[in-house]
Each structure stands twice: as structure tokens, then as C-alpha cells.
């Protein structure tokens, strides 16, 4: 009885802020502007401007997820190697920027990357050619990697930290070199963390509209931008909800992947 009572506030929260809003999105997604059931809002994803945006979003978020993984794995191994005391200080330094507003940090990148920005002033000082990536997909990928990298590092670090040193030593005793240990021992054991990290980076990258607006000069339309525009500019909540539901399919697919590989819940970030 006591335990059930404790779950009460949580249940209320879930119903009020997850179940009801989701139901409303489903309702809006399957009704037209004049009311009445329709599949048009969901089917609208097939329109060239929408499907192009979705494909581009998928491509950019995959690229940024791979970049994050390549950057994060070695870092997580270094962190593990440092031992608890020093390692956690580095983790702290790493998380520190996250205390600042996400929007501000992305705007700072604008100032850095602009044509007359900080980086180009620096390059110009040494007579080096200017960096022209502002308002291109490359700037968006950079923004995604910068903002979401901690979400890749932390779950991988959490899993690596739990791997017993004896396991590694045993591999060395049995004659495995570093790369064999990495591929046969480290990586398979850290897979839950890797999968969790991939999901944590892929999902927000896929849905972002702020990064593409700020670093893409509104020239590059991602599926997040399309949905945002339907809600804030076109005022067509039905279309926006319909497209959100299509996007949810992709998010759920990656969640299912997570559930399959991470049964023990080891890869959770916090």
C-alpha cells in the first residue's frame, strides 16, 4: 500500500505531462484543419520538401553521432585510466560547459565561425586562408557534436569504469595485444554504454531546430525546422503534429535498439 502511494505523484506527472500531451499530438496529427479524420498530415512526409528535410536530418545526425563516438571512446578510456579522483575532476571539467545555456553556447559558435569572426581573425593574423563553414551543413554537424558530445562520453565512461582490471589483465596474460583487447574485450563489454550514447546523441540531433537555425543561417531545412515552422509560423498544428509522429517512429526505433542491448540498464548516463 505504502509503495503504491509513493508512485502517485509520479503517475500524476506522467499522465499530465506525457500521456495527455501525446494523446493531443495524436489527435491533432490525425485530424484536418476543419476537424475530421485524415491521414494527410502523416502522409505529408512524402512531399519532396519534407522528405528531403528528413533525409538530410538523418544524414547529419548520423554523421554527428559517428563523430561523437570516435571522439568520445578514447576520451572515456583515458578518463577510466586516470582512476577515480583525477578522472572525476576531468569529468567535472567536461560537464562544466553544460551549466551554461545551450542556446548561448550555440550562439557563441556563431561569433567564432563568422566570416569576420574570432577564428578567422586568428587565421588571418597568421596569413592563413579563411575558414568558410558558417551556414553550411558542416557548421551544423559541428554544433551537434559540440553540444551532444557529453551525452556520448558519460554513458561510455560509466560502463568502462565498471570493467574489472582483472579482465583486462587476463587478456594481456593470454597474449592479446592492445588492439585485440580493445576489439575482443573492451568494446563488447562497453556495448551497452555505446548504444546508450548513440541514442542520446542521435535523438536530439535528429530533432534539433535551433542548431540548424543559428549555424545554418536558416538556409538548411531540417525536419525539426519544418515542424517548428508549422507550429510557430504557419500555425498549422495538425501538420506539425503529423510530422512529429513520423519523427517519433525514428526515435522509437532507436529506443528499441537501446532496450535490446541495454537490459541491465548499465549504460544510463546519470
Amino acid at each position, binding site marked *: 500500500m505504502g509503495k503504491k502511494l509513493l508512485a502517485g505523484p509520479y503517475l500524476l506527472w506522467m499522465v499530465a505531462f506525457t500521456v495527455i500531451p501525446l494523446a493531443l499530438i495524436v489527435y491533432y496529427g490525425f485530424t484536418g484543419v476543419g476537424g475530421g479524420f485524415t491521414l494527410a498530415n502523416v502522409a505529408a512526409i512524402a512531399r519532396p520538401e519534407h522528405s528531403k528535410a528528413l533525409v538530410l536530418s538523418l544524414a547529419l545526425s548520423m554523421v554527428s553521432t559517428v563523430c561523437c563516438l570516435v571522439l568520445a571512446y578514447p576520451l572515456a578510456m583515458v578518463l577510466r585510466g586516470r582512476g577515480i579522483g583525477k578522472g572525476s575532476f576531468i569529468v567535472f571539467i567536461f560537464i562544466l560547459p553544460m551549466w551554461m545555456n545551450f542556446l548561448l553556447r550555440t550562439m557563441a559558435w556563431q561569433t567564432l565561425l563568422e566570416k569576420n569572426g574570432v577564428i578567422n581573425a586568428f587565421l588571418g593574423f597568421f596569413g592563413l586562408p579563411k575558414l568558410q563553414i558558417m551556414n553550411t551543413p558542416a557548421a551544423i554537424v559541428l554544433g551537434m557534436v559540440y553540444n551532444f558530445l557529453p551525452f556520448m562520453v558519460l554513458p561510455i565512461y560509466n560502463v568502462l569504469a565498471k570493467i574489472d582490471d582483472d579482465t583486462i589483465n587476463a587478456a594481456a596474460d593470454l597474449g592479446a595485444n592492445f588492439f585485440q583487447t580493445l576489439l575482443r574485450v573492451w568494446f563488447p563489454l562497453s556495448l551497452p554504454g555505446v548504444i546508450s550514447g548513440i541514442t542520446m546523441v542521435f535523438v536530439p540531433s535528429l530533432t*534539433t531546430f*535551433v542548431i540548424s537555425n543559428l549555424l545554418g*543561417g*536558416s538556409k538548411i531545412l531540417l525536419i525539426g525546422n519544418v515542424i517548428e515552422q508549422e507550429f510557430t509560423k504557419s*500555425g498549422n498544428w495538425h501538420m506539425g503534429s503529423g510530422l512529429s509522429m513520423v*519523427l517519433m517512429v525514428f526515435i522509437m526505433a532507436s529506443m528499441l535498439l537501446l532496450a535490446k542491448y541495454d537490459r541491465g540498464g548499465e549504460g544510463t548516463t546519470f
Partner: protein
Amino acid sequence: MKKRGMSEIVAVAAAVALAVSGLVGCGGSGGAATQAAGTSGAGAGADASAAGQGSASGEGTAAAGAGTAAGESAKPQPGGELYVYNWGEYIDEDVIDMFEDETGIQVIYDVFETNEEMYPVIEAGGVSYDVVCPSDYMIQKMIENNLLAKLDFSNIPSFDQIDPRFVEDSKSFDPDNAYSVPYTWGTVGILYNTSLVPEDKAPTKWADLWDESFKGEILMQDSVRDAFMVALKMLGYSLNSTDEKELEEAKDLLIAQKPLVQAYVIDQVRDKMIGGEAAIGVIYSGEMLYIQEEVESLGLDYELEYVLPEEGSNVWIDAWVVPANAKNKYNAELWIDFMCRPEIALKNFEYITYSTPNKGAFDMLDEDLQTNKALFPDAEALKNCEVFRYMGPEADELYNNLWKEVKSN
């Protein structure tokens, strides 16, 4: 309004939908707020000089205000609150304090960045604003959708300060002059950087924005009507066209221009032009004076010139309106009346530098400002210009879909 009774639940749904689509639902408004914070320091200098004369005349009107309040005891007593929804950076903030001091009304002030962003907020009614400052075509749309309340002009005696020319112009979106009181007006044109654009290439018409030599140097407006206005006017069509063929042509033109465009921006065009990030930008005439002052005070080695393109452009009016669901309509009318006072209109003009339709304020300006053709163009210069009109939901959808095609290309 009619179909959305449960406005609060709907607002929650919107928030979650935005969260699903991006995890940071406050992207737009957050940006506007930080921008306001960033530039307010720059405006403070210009503001200080106005404060001297402003406060002196403010006291005089305060006494006058008290007199009328006492004389008409039948009116509801002022006091309480007033929810104002205005464009970002669109008022001298001292004016808000002066209004609060004089009336005892507490002002809650929010800002928006585009008409399109403002409309669903008013329509959903989650927050009931008392006084809003949209543009012409959006006011028409709000009137047609019964979102506005008729004003009681007996509470707005200073309305006679508005130049009759703008009262007349307002009839294009508010046929009986029953809902709106003009606040600012202006045109949309081209701003160019004299050091980045060779003299013989100085733009004079919209078609110059398709010049290959400006690749990566052009800033376009990131709002559907403004962007299509440029292309439609260049093609010689009306900026209120709903002809699918004409709009398709305009769309193709915008797609052809896209490789030359550095970015589609709204308020950022100002800072980017001042910083020399781009050579040419499409901009509201009201920004010109502020930008030129800023360039001068920063001691930059270039100038920024404003041109009203030959093909004609959009002449616009932003006006105060009161939403139908306003809880403090009388306070809103007091606010509008306050804004119409010549000395207040002048103070706002000096701060925001958008042309004022207030003839009392205009008469107080220096002669070189009065004769500044970029700020106050005459009828000859405006002969090809048009006011935006709301063309109905089907046209809205057509424009939005074509704009998405431009953006996704």
C-alpha cells in the same frame, strides 16, 4: 478561439510538441530576449540625451492626465495590470516606466519576433494580452478571425495627433479605422556596405540581389511574405499576388538566388551589417538610422546606405490593437493614448528610429531628419509601393508551402 476552448491544455500540448521536435521549445523567444539584452547597452547613449527633454514634458502631461481622470469619474479607475505584447526592441523602456508612474498600472511586457509567431499565441489565448502591435496584414487577419476588440476612441484623445494620411492608409487593413492606432511605419529596402560594394555596382533595384558578384554577401529576410515580396516586385507583380503561376515564378527566382544568399535572418541583419559580415541586406527602413549612428560611433571605416528599390516595395504600418479576450481593455486604451502623445512618440522615435506617423512628433524633429527621404519617403518615391494584405488561409498555405520548397532546396 472558437474551436479551442481548452486553451491551457492546448498550450501544454504545443510545449510538448516543440519539446519532441527539438528539446528546446524556447528557441525563438530566448533569442529575442538575449538580443534585446545585447543591444540595449548600445541604445543607452542615444537615450540619455532624450531623457532631459522627455522628463520635463512628461511632468506636464502627468498633470494633464490627472486632470482628465478627475473630471470623468464615470470612467473605470485605472490601476491594476496591463499585458503588452510588442516587437523586440520596439519601445524606449523609459516610456514604460513613465506610463507606470503616471497611471499606477503595472505593465507586463513581452516581445515577439515575427507576426507569424505572434498570431498563434493570441489565437490560442493561453496568455491574454491587452495590447499588441502587429503589422497591417496581420491586423486584417485578426479582424477577419474576430480576434480583436473595437477601440473606444473617447479614451484615446491623442489619436488626433496621428497624421490623417496614415489613418487613411490604415483603411486598407482596418476599413472603418475601428480597431487600430498606427504606431510606426516604413518601407523595406536594400542596405549596402560602401566598402564592400563598388560604386558602379551600388544596388538600385531588387534585381541587383541576383548579381553573381555578390555571392555569399547577401542577407535575405527570413519571413515568408517579405521574401516573396522581393521576388514578386522584381517580376513586376503585386506583392499581394495569389496567382499560383506568379508565385511559382517567384519561388523559382528565390531558389535561383539561394546559392548567393549568405543567410536568411530577421533581426540579426542589423548586427551582421554593422559588423561588415555581408555586403547587402534586405532591411526595414527604420533600422537604417540606428545602424548608421552605430557605424559612426564605432568609428568603422565604411558607411551603410539605404535604397528604396525602383520596382517598388512594401510600405507597412505597425499599429496598436486590443485582442478580443483582453482583460484590461481600458488600461490598454490608456496605453495607446499615451503612445500617441507627441513627446512620447518622439522619445520612442529617437530610441527605435522607426518612422513615426505622429505629426506632433514629426514637427519636433530636426529638419535634416524631416527631409530624410529614406526615413520619410514622399508620395513620388512610394508610387510603386503597396501595403501587405491578408489573402486568406488558402493563400497562406500556398505561400508557406512554396517557402518550404525554397528552404529545402
